[in-house]
């Protein structure tokens, strides 16, 4: 579990014409908190996540985890990618134990945990299958299991359910809620789906586009444990209306800027 802090983080890509992707982002995430970054596609929210993961550096400002500067990518920050990004040449089992193996942990330390996690995500019987034999939802469950097996301090999720059909997506959201309520890991969840953000997060940050900055923060006080039944509750609808209004005005600002 980790505390994450961003101080005036900005990012410029220096191509033929420099592109300002992020502008002065300040963000404090408490230990064990579930935070959603909500914004239109291509608004720079993935850039923010890549900086947290250590895949990219920031051009300005500082990104801290537990008070220390974020460095190279590492198993303390587990990343779940949009298309799962499993190694297609490894079986489900080999994918899940890849992390602990790379860290040189003894088998006795992770094999039991890996088996348990595979059962949790409902893939016990698919341990010897290859990713190509799985559906998109199953692949993403492997993607989650292989990260959780490393017991990361923070989970960074980049539109992990964006490519799934509506039904699978809901099942995955419930699965994530169940798992998270058990582990209480800090989660940064990037999405463009308003329902998803409200259902999962403690706080939703609505991002504006080009360059991305954090427009508004909305605390979601829906009681936990939550389930997809909450999607139709009046409080949920209220949050949704608030966020939609916020996104519309953010879009308007971007258009007129």
């Amino acid at each position, binding site marked *: 579990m980790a505390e994450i802090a961003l101080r005036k983080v900005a990012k410029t890509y220096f191509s033929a014409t420099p592109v300002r992707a992020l502008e002065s982002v300040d963000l404090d995430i408490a230990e064990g908190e579930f935070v959603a970054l909500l914004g239109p596609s291509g608004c720079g929210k993935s850039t923010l996540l890549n900086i947290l993961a250590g895949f990219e550096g920031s051009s300005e400002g500082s990104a801290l985890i537990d008070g220390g500067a974020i460095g190279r990518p590492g198993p303390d920050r587990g990343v779940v990618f949009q298309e799962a990004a499993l190694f297609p*040449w490894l079986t489900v089992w080999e994918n899940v134990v890849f992390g602990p193996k790379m860290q040189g942990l003894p088998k006795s330390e992770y094999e039991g945990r890996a088996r348990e996690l595979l059962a949790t995500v409902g893939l016990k019987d698919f341990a010897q299958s290859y990713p190509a034999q799985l559906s998109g939802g199953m692949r993403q469950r492997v993607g989650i299991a292989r990260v959780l097996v490393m017991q990361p301090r923070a989970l960074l999720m980049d539109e992990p359910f964006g490519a799934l059909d509506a039904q699978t997506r809901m099942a995955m959201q419930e699965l994530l809620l169940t798992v998270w309520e058990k582990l209480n890991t800090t989660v940064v969840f990037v999405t463009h789906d308003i329902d998803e953000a409200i259902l999962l997060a403690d706080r939703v940050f609505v991002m504006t586009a080009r360059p991305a900055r954090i427009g508004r923060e909305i605390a979601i006080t829906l009681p936990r444990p939550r389930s997809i039944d909450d999607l139709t509750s009046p409080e949920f609808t209220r949050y949704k209306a608030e966020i939609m209004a916020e996104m519309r005005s953010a879009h308007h600002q971007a258009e007129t800027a």
Partner: protein
Amino acid sequence: MTDTSVKEAGSRPAGMAAPGSRALGSALPRILMNSGLAQILIALVLPVAIVTIWQLAGTNGSLFGGVLPTPDRVVSAWWTWAFGAKGMGLNPYSGTWLANVIFSTERVAEGFLVAILVGVPAGIWIGWSRLGAQILDPTVQMLRPIPITAWLPFSLAVFGISGFSAIFLIALGAFYPIVINTTQGARHVERNLVRAALMMGAGRLDILRRVVLPAALPAIFTGLRIGLGIGWTAVIVSEMIAVKSGLGYVLWDAYYVGRMDVVIADMVSIGVMGLLSDQLILLAERWALSWRLAGAR
């Protein structure tokens, strides 16, 4: 995965030949056309026709006024070459076939192995590291237009009349397609796979061995198949000139003494060996890339 089309075109199974045969209308002929046995029979029509016409065109075992032997003469020449008594070196075309096949195959195998051992790491380096590309790629690209045949005198001067001369040319010829395809494969590794590995704590060497190499493997196999084909070309060329044994040596020697029946038997032998070795690579590919076929069902 840029090579998908190449690979799938090469290994298209019998069941996928359907589009053309759909024109035949009813389902029954289509099923017959697609069965394994039917495929083989259809494939044999043209070669059998050619051999038959060739045989019928000859008189007294030869055609074109004795320039070419008929197929039956070729077969009997091959029979003697393969199973005849070794005439204490008096008849080089009796009982020496296997020995020569082994000479050539060994050279191809050795040269090919050198090409793999040099070409795959070099390709991974060029494709993966900018420094590697800057150091190696220009030299490779400058040397590549020189055909291996042009290297023959150089090879003779350096290695003399010996097997090394052949092995050098084979290794050089097979090296180019292997290094170029490996480069392509290593260059196009999905970025998120590398990021995932980094996130899970993989070091530089782990990334090369466990991500870049397997990701490049389909492209590498494409390079291996092309490289092996060039390897067989190189062994024949160099044995014709630089070595005194092997199928290439016999080919040229038999031509000099007017034994066209042996020449043709030799050509067929080279073709068969090339085909067999290609099948061997395909087999290895199917084994190494089983994870790709797993999804195809």
